[in-house]
C-alpha cells in the first residue's frame, strides 16, 4: 500500500506534517507494509491535507485529514472523496504544466521520467538552437509572469546576441497576492523547472542559469536546492547534459523581501548584489541583462511549461486556448472562496464560471462583491464583468489584466475604499524609489483616499489626476499599474467612496 501526504507548503500550513507523522506512527504500531510518499499538492487547497491511498486499484482521496482521523483512515472506515482525479474540480482541468504535480514524488527523478519527464529535453537535444526557439514560438507561449510577452520572440533575441556568456534567469519572486503557482510547481515538480531552463539554455546558447527565489518560500527553496543537487548527480545539469556534450548548470539564489525585485531588471540588480532598483529599458535584458550580458528572464511557469511543449509538440499546446492566448492558464483561486486552489485550464473560460461554478462562490457564503485578478496591480472586477473570458486581450479590453493569473475573491462586506488605500500603501512600501510619481505619488494617494474617507468629495478628482500622473510618469508597472486597483475600486464601487461623505455631511 502507498500513502501520499503532500509536502506542499499550503498542505503543511494546514497540518500535513502532523498527519504524516501520525501515519508513520500508526503504521509502525500496526506493523503494516506501507510506503509513505510526500508528493506535491493536487491543488485542491480546501481539501488539504489531502491524503491519497493506493492499494493497487488507483488513488483514493481523503481530506481534509487530521491526525485524529489516521486510525480510521488505515482501517478503511474514514469517509473518502473517491478517486482523486474524479473530484469535479480536478476532473474539469486540462493539466499540461501541472500534469505531474501532486502525482509524483517531487525529488524522484525516475518517477519524473516515468511520467513524461526529460522526453522534451531529449527531443530538444536533437534540434538546432533555431529549431528550439521556433518550437517555442509556434507553441504561442506567452510569459506567465505578468506581461504576456511572447516567449519565442524573447528567446530569439537572446539567440541572436553575440556574447561570451549568456544566462537563463528563472523569475521565482512570485510576490503577487493571490498567486502560488510558482511555489506549487517548485515544491511539487521541481525537475520540470530545471528541464525547462536547460532547454532554454540549449535554445539560446546559455550555459548558466539562476533561479531567483523569494525568501518568503523556505519550503520551495529547500526542494529546489535538493532537486538541483540530484539533477547534477544524475548528469541532467553540468558539463555534459544527459551525455550530449552540451553544458548547463544553475544556482538557486534567495531574494531578500522586496516585491519590486520581481520586476526583471530590479531582479537582475539584486542578483548582481545591488539595490533592487529598476533599470530603464532599453537596453533589454535580452541584450544586456545579468552582468551586462544577454539574458533570458522568464517566469517559473513559462519555463515549467517548456518541457511539455517539447514532449507533446508545439501544435498540441497551441491547440488549446483563445485568440492570441494559446495553451493553458494556471489559475490560482484565492481569498474568500469556497474551493480555492490551482486550476489549470485552456484560456477562454469566463470569469464568472470560474468563480461561481468551479470555486463555488465565497467561503463565507455571502455574495461576491469583487474579484481582483492579476495581483496587487490588477483591477477589481465587479460581478457585472463576470462574462469576460480569460484571455490577455479580453481582460485588457475589460479594463483588467491577467498578470500571473491569481484571482482573489471578496465578499460583500469588503470596503473597496479600504482596498484602494491598501493598493497605494503597498506601492509606497514597495516602491524602489526611482521615480517621483511612484515614490511620492503613492503616499499622496493614501492621504487623498483618507480625505475621501473623511467626506471630502473634492479629493476624488485629485485622486483621479494623481492616478493619471502615476500611469504616465512611472518607469515600471509598480507605479504605473497601481492606478488599476485604485481606479477600478472607485469606478465600480462608487458607493464605498460616497456613503462616508454623505454620512459626514
Amino acid at each position, binding site marked *: 500500500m502507498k500513502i501520499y501526504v503532500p509536502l506542499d*507548503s*499550503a498542505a*503543511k*500550513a*494546514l497540518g500535513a506534517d502532523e498527519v504524516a507523522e501520525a501515519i508513520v506512527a500508526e503504521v509502525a504500531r500496526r506493523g503494516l507494509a506501507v510506503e509513505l510518499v510526500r508528493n506535491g499538492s493536487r491543488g485542491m*487547497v*480546501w481539501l*488539504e491535507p489531502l491524503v491519497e491511498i493506493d492499494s493497487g486499484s488507483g488513488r483514493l482521496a481523503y481530506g481534509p485529514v487530521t491526525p485524529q482521523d489516521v486510525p480510521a483512515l488505515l482501517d478503511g472506515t474514514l469517509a473518502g472523496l473517491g478517486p482523486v482525479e474524479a473530484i469535479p474540480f480536478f476532473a474539469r482541468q486540462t493539466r499540461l504544466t501541472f500534469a505531474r504535480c501532486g502525482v509524483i514524488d517531487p525529488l524522484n527523478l525516475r518517477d519524473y521520467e516515468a511520467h513524461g519527464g526529460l522526453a522534451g529535453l531529449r527531443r530538444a537535444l536533437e534540434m538546432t538552437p533555431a529549431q528550439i526557439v521556433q518550437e517555442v514560438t509556434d507553441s504561442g507561449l506567452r510569459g506567465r509572469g505578468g506581461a504576456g510577452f511572447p516567449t519565442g520572440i524573447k528567446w530569439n533575441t537572446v539567440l541572436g546576441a553575440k556574447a561570451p556568456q549568456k544566462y537563463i534567469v528563472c523569475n521565482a519572486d*512570485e*510576490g*503577487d*497576492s*493571490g*498567486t*502560488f503557482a*510558482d511555489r*506549487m510547481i517548485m515544491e511539487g515538480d521541481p525537475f520540470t523547472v530545471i528541464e525547462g531552463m536547460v532547454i532554454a539554455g540549449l535554445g539560446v546558447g546559455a550555459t548558466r542559469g539562476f533561479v531567483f527565489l523569494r*525568501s*518568503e*518560500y*523556505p*519550503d*520551495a527553496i529547500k526542494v529546489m536546492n535538493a532537486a538541483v543537487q540530484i539533477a547534477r548527480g544524475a548528469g541532467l545539469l553540468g558539463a555534459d547534459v544527459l551525455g550530449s556534450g552540451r553544458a548547463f548548470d544553475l*544556482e538557486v*539564489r*534567495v*531574494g*531578500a*523581501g*522586496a*516585491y519590486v525585485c520581481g520586476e526583471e531588471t530590479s531582479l537582475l540588480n*539584486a542578483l*548582481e*548584489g*545591488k*539595490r*533592487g*532598483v529598476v533599470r530603464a529599458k532599453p537596453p533589454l535584458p535580452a541584450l544586456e541583462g*545579468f*552582468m551586462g550580458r544577454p539574458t533570458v528572464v522568464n517566469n517559473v511557469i513559462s519555463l515549467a511549461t517548456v518541457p511539455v511543449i517539447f514532449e507533446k509538440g508545439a501544435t498540441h499546446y497551441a491547440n488549446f486556448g483563445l485568440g492570441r492566448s494559446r495553451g493553458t492558464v494556471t489559475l*490560482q*483561486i*484565492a*481569498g*474568500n*472562496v469556497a474551493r*480555492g486552489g490551482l486550476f489549470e485550464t485552456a484560456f477562454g473560460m469566463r470569469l464568472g464560471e470560474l468563480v461561481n461554478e468551479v470555486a463555488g462562490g465565497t*467561503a463565507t457564503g455571502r455574495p461576491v462583491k469583487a474579484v*481582483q485578478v492579476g495581483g*496587487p496591480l490588477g483591477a477589481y472586477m465587479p460581478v457585472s464583468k463576470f462574462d469576460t473570458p480569460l484571455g490577455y486581450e479580453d481582460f485588457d479590453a475589460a479594463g483588467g489584466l491577467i498578470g500571473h493569473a*491569481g484571482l*482573489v*475573491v*471578496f*465578499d460583500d462586506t469588503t470596503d473597496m475604499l479600504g*482596498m484602494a488605500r*491598501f493598493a497605494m500603501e*503597498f506601492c509606497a*512600501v*514597495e516602491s524602489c524609489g526611482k521615480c517621483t510619481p511612484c515614490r511620492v505619488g503613492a503616499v499622496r494617494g493614501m492621504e487623498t483616499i483618507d480625505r475621501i474617507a473623511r467626506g471630502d468629495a473634492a479629493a476624488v478628482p485629485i485622486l483621479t489626476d494623481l492616478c493619471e500622473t502615476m500611469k504616465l510618469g512611472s518607469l515600471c508597472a509598480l507605479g504605473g499599474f497601481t492606478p488599476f486597483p485604485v481606479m477600478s475600486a472607485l469606478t465600480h464601487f462608487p458607493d464605498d467612496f460616497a456613503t462616508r461623505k454623505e454620512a459626514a455631511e
Partner: protein
Amino acid sequence: MHTRLPVPSDAEISALIAPHLALEGPLLPILHDIQARFGHVPDRAQPLIAEALNISKAEVHGVVSFYHDFREVPAGRHVVKICRAEACQAMGGAALAEQTLARLGIGWHGTTANGAVTVEPVYCLGLCACAPAAMVDDKVVGRVDAARMDALLREVGA
C-alpha cells in the same frame, strides 16, 4: 530561533564571507548567511564585506537598507510574520493582525518586552487559498484565527 550571541569576531564574519567570493554577484548570499548566523547584519560586518568585495561601505549599506529582510539590529528570539496582502485581507487578515499586535502591545516590526517575539508584516506567503496566513520562523500556518494565533504565540513564549 536565534540565541543572543556575543559580538562576533572578524574571523567569524570573514569565514562566512569567504565561501561566496567565487560567485557571480555574491553580496546577497553573503548577507543571508551572516543574518542566518547572527540574527542580524552586525555593524562590523559591513566594512569587512566591502573590503572583501572591493566595493564601498556605502554600497554595502545601501544594499542592506534596501531589502526588507536584512536587519541591522537583532530581532526577538522568534519572528512571526503575518500576511497583510489582499487574499488574506479577504479572510479577515487585517483584524487578526491588529488583534495580535494589540495583545502583544507592540506595533509592526516591534519586539515583545521579554525579547521572545518580533512581529513583521509580510506581503503574501503563497498561502492565499488558505488565508489568513502567517509564518513562525520558517514554519507556515494557514487559516489562522485568533485562537490559533494565541496558541502559536504561547509556543514561542510571547
